[in-house]
């Protein structure tokens, strides 16, 4: 069963067409990976879902059309967004970043859940977010959004630029989150994709080039080489 249905999605930026009719679904549970080489339109797709880019076509979330809605209204429908650049407010403290994201009827349980996933956020509550390490900023970006009543998370490159140890921590936390909230995951690290995503959609030059089970995709070195530019032969993945 699909929670998010994207059909013939087209986006142009600065007069250049970036997405040329992207069509795919995101399941109502688990993790769906959105893959592809750099510049094929993955982040553009995420931003179009959030209403951050003007788009044409159709994006239906639980049956409701999102195109034309302002970003805050899309977020209030329950779509949480963790952007590629993390989007933490560096001049604000960790606690202030979290306070900004919390809904009016904030539940202490939500904070407990976030602190259980990322204890460092509790210890660094009074610290300016701009002084956190890259990994801690990513934890803040994810932890902050988890305070909201999400029905879908759109997470863009959560392990980008992180050390293997921190990337594994972040991936582990996202796997925990995915038990209760479906995730559309944009990720270049195929090791993370392999352990998290049951289904994958691969974009190529603004179009969907492949859809299917992640294990089938990653087991096919010809396909991964052709679509992602990496080899997964002998079980090796980046």
């Amino acid at each position, binding site marked *: 069963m699909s929670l998010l249905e994207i059909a013939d999605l087209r986006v142009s930026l600065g007069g250049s067409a970036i997405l040329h009719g992207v069509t795919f679904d995101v399941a109502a549970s688990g993790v769906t990976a959105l893959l592809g080489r750099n510049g094929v339109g993955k982040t553009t797709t995420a931003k179009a879902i*959030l209403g*951050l880019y003007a788009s044409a076509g159709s994006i239906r979330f639980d049956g409701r059309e999102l195109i034309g809605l*302002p*970003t*805050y209204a899309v*977020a*209030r429908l329950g779509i949480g*967004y963790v*952007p590629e650049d993390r*989007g933490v*407010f*560096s*001049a*604000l403290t960790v606690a*202030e*970043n979290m*306070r*900004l*994201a919390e*809904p009016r009827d904030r539940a202490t349980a939500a904070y407990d859940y976030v602190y259980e996933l990322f204890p460092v956020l509790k210890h660094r509550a009074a610290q300016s977010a701009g002084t956190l390490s890259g990994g801690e900023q990513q934890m803040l970006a994810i932890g*902050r*959004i988890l305070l*909201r009543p999400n029905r879908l998370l759109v997470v863009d490159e959560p392990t980008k630029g992180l050390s293997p140890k921190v990337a594994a921590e972040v991936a582990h936390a996202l796997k925990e989150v995915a038990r209760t909230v479906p995730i559309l995951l944009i990720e270049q690290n195929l090791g993370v994709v392999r352990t998290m995503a049951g289904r994958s959609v691969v974009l190529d030059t603004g179009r969907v080039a492949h859809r299917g089970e992640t294990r089938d995709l990653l087991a096919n070195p010809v396909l991964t080489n052709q679509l992602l530019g990496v080899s997964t032969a002998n079980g090796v993945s980046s």
Partner: protein
Amino acid sequence: MTTLVLLTATGLGLAALYFLVASGLSLIFGLMDVLNFAHGAFVSIGGYVGWTVADHLSGTFGLVGSLLAGIAAGAAVAAATELAVIRPLYGRPLDQVLATVGLGLAIPALLQAIWGADSRTWLLPGWLAGTVNVAGAHVPTVRFLLIGIAVALLIALRLLLGRTRAGLIVRAGVEDREMVTALGIDVRRANSAVFALGGAAAGLAGVLYGLYQGSVSPGDGTSLLVFAFVVVVLGGAGSITGTAVAAIAVGLVQQYADYASASLGDESVVILLAAVLLLRRRNLQGRPA
């Protein structure tokens, strides 16, 4: 020594005016990326509305009434401007500049049509019209009123930005407006509030400028706006503390230079701006200008 005290008091009085005008300008630009060239017109409207109240109500009662009326007029006109002029032009910065420049020219012309081109004399209450002896210098009492109100506004703005959710939204919006909306927050409401708040401060500045000069004239806001823009560039858009520091620097440099040579006052501000931008390529807070 007395000259130094007098120059410093006058410089700080001017700094207070610059801060009042520039703080709103800075928040509006920082949060909304709107270069509001109509901001000076809000100053002029506040000045004339305040003068009208003071003209009808004498003494301290008239003074308080004129301050409140100036604040209300500035806030109301700014809110209407945001709603009718700025909001339909979001994402079109050039059109916003053209629209606000037009408004900034039209409003003083309208004020001139209503109240005439000649300046209107503002009679201060007795207690405000005198001087205070500071280290032998007779500093006009009104200077202390200006400085006191500016300090109060600085404290109030810092409390608002630092202690309230609305302030949190403004501070976050200055940094990354897109991400604030992605957290489910309607930034347009913050935009309207900041525009009205900036207009209120500008209207207040208009009244205080009238008290400072002892008169109001249609071009008051425009003349203050030039220096306010310099303060915003030096202080950093969206930074209230930076705005305060820059306002003090500009006010003092202008007064000291003016004393050295009557023609140097305004030029010194331009030289200060050029020096900071060229030599440090940073504003006074050390951030890229």
